[in-house]
């Protein structure tokens, strides 16, 4: 199992998991959100290919009110 930090919370995934796999745990793969892997923007088009390593951080962001 590999441990990653998703929105500051640790989750465990099977080895070889991709970003898509991680996202399937927390929500739909479509919708108003975007992802950064290890603080770098990851386009939607790469969720399926991008494999995860132990210790990776994933940030999922969605719209909020802003000034």
């Amino acid at each position, binding site marked *: 199992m590999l441990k990653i930090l998703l929105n500051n919370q640790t989750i465990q995934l099977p080895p070889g998991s991709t970003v898509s796999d991680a996202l399937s745990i927390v929500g739909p793969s479509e919708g*108003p959100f975007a992802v950064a892997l290890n603080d770098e923007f990851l386009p939607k088009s790469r969720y399926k290919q991008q494999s995860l390593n132990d210790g990776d951080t994933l940030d999922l962001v969605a719209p909020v009110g802003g000034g």
Partner: protein
Amino acid sequence: MADLLTLYGEQFQSRFLLGTALYSSPAAMLESVATSACDIVTLGLRRQNPKDRDGQTLWNAIQSTGKRLLPNTAGCKSAKEAINLAEMSREIFSTDWIKLEVIGDDYNLQPCPFGLVEAAAELNLRGFKVLPYCTDDLVLCQRLLDAGCQVLMPWGSPIGTGLGLMNKYNLKTLRERLPQVPLIVDAGLGAPSQACEAMEMGFDAVLLNTAVAKAAQPAAMAQAFAAAINAGRAAYLAGLMVKRQTASPSTPTIGQPFWHQHPKGNS
């Protein structure tokens, strides 16, 4: 002939850009957006679980306004953070417009001159239309223009303070020295009179959030700001009178009764 605001080649009726945070409810936000008659609203991105319905609700509400979206990079402390958040915004909102914020200090939340220029240069290279939230420093503003920005958003005073136009000297200098650049006063305005004055000074538009969202009656306040901004713009175009240090009568003095030219007179 309409007096339109032009930003990155697009034209807008309204010179009031409104933020969508800090309202007591999505409904209150929607009502204020409506009464403000703004054409552009700002919004942000934050970590959320996509299953979280609250975020979805606000987002649906903002989308329903049909206004142009201006996502921000609020809270970013480095060029790198801001650039990545800008990319995420572009993907989500399908817009290359970005209100660039790089915060240089946790307490006064002021723009970081160094991070701003670095991020602006990179974002402009990547095809973004960057509207940087910056200080009133002329040299910084010039660097942001050199980095490709076509619009600047200098602060009035620190975010959320309501202190208004803190350094009018610097703001006047910006306006005089950058006559062709759309300049939007962003942050620190607390009252319509302050927004009105910014427009009288020749600024092109005003962006604010707290002063509306934290008013006792936000929707009414949004409308008040809209009217004051229009008034200030109209006054700028109509040409303000020149201030004088000494009094000058309005009612003519010629023909003043009771002033006589013979000794009997009382004056």
